């Protein structure tokens, strides 16, 4: 698993993808942050910044995940992985953690933006921390969704487009739910809605249920990815 993790991590910066992801993330985040908080000289629009970043993740995270499995499948390099003494779970986890590391490192660098807020006032630390945690968990879940979809195809572009579409669909669930009058449909859908699960974090709450939900969501899609490979081996 560690060998695969190290290779994938290095591969991000041997190809332009790692630089594009980091650069676009920091640029878009910086501009949005400036417009919503620094230029306003207020932290009132901070929730807007976090919501915009969730939408940005929907586009940027598929850049990180699109090639993880599809490229190996297309170039047949998966044969060296699948015939080596590494378990399928180890292989998938190695790739997942490589993408998560690039995301986390960029996320961490971006966090210096929040320090600037303290130069201009006294923002609520709990609010900022809760939002950061929520945003990080959402990003981790999007990575898991992305690698699952990358494992389904050998075309990077299809992996990226389906990931963006799927994440957008999952996010739009919140708006769909609001227009559903039938209680027995609305309640379970609301339980699954990512944005609804994110709401407690915007309210300064470290909601354990939501934390468990996001970690479980990541685990489920990592598990599905392992299953995709198991199924391919048998079919």
């Amino acid at each position, binding site marked *: 698993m560690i060998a695969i993790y190290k290779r994938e991590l290095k*591969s991000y910066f041997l190809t332009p993808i790692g630089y594009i992801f980091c650069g676009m993330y920091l640029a878009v985040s910086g501009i949005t942050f400036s417009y919503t908080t620094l230029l306003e000289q207020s932290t009132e629009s901070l929730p807007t910044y976090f919501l915009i970043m969730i939408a940005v993740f929907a586009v940027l995270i598929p850049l990180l995940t699109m090639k993880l499995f599809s490229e190996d499948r297309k*170039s047949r390099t998966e044969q060296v992985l699948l015939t080596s*003494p590494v378990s399928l779970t180890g292989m998938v986890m190695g790739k997942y953690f490589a993408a998560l590391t690039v995301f986390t490192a960029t996320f961490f660098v971006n966090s210096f933006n929040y320090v600037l807020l303290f130069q201009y006032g006294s923002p609520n630390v709990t609010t900022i921390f809760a939002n950061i945690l929520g945003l990080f968990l959402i990003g981790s879940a999007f990575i898991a969704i992305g690698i699952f979809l990358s494992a389904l195809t050998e075309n990077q572009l299809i992996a990226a487009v389906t990931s963006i579409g799927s994440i957008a669909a999952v996010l739009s669930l919140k708006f769909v739910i609001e227009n559903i009058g039938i209680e027995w449909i609305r309640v379970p859908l609301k339980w699954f809605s990512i944005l609804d699960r994110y709401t407690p974090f915007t309210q300064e709450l470290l909601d354990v249920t939501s934390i468990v939900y996001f970690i479980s969501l990541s685990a489920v899609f990592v598990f599905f990815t392992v299953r995709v490979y198991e199924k391919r081996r048998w079919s």
Partner: protein
Amino acid sequence: MIEIMNISKNFGDKKAVSDLSFNVVEGEILGFLGPNGAGKSTTMNIITGYLSASSGTARIDGIDILENPTEAKRRIGFLPEIPPLYPEMTVKEYLGFVYDLKDCRFPREQHLKEICDVVKIGDVYKRMIKNLSKGYRQRVGIAQALIGNPKVLIFDEPTIGLDPKQIIEIRHLIKMLGREHTVVLSTHILPEVQAVCDRIVVINEGKLVANEKTEDLIMAVEGTRKLVAKIVGPEADVLKMLKSTGGVRYAEMLGKRDTDSISYLIESEEKIDVRKSLFYNLSKNGWPLVGLEGMELNLEDIFIRLIDKEKNEQVKKKRGVKQA
């Protein structure tokens, strides 16, 4: 070393491999032959654990590939038809990655250097894989299979797409590797099998057609062996002697090729090698043998004959059942 027992593999409705069984003993180089779509790659992928069989068992060094895949895979080095290389990496980075992937216990630098020396890629060790020629890529593919010094090496068409010089080099390399490893080699090229392999397994439509020693199989399929001999001596006497040699069914003069030697076509009886008798008879008469070439069948002919033989046997069996 490798035990394949009643393996079948279905892809949907299509049966890629059907009830296939064979063994490979330790230190043997096995040629795995079959026309395109015969199921060679599927079988190799099952042996290496890349695919799972629908039914049957594959054991490497006594370890079931399904029950204990990690341990079984430690004993296998696999070169697929397309070498699994990452073009953005250097050879050094790639081999280092495979070394880590296989959780190799040998001293890292020394082990990789030894492998590079064996496959002769030392001069491209620090170059990007995407800039290497096909021959070098194939060698890097073989190098990754050798990492961890596995007991079993499986090569799927290792010489495909290479130029004649590279083909000869890779064949020599495989022959050399066969001294210390058990090798399974899939190929379409008959001279390759004859040059390298101890035994041949032929499959067609996923079924075993033949499993014999290389010489025996070729003799069995050819039935008779045709030879062209260049002999210096009186034409009529030589021809008379050739015809009277035990095991020779037919002999004729082909004509003068050199200034003093004459070429003769010699056809032996079924499954008899007349080369030794010929040599002794010519020697006894003081007629120098200056050349001896075998006129052997190509792989396509062998496939056709083996498959026809199998069909004929099936027809006979069916008739036998009906009569009974």
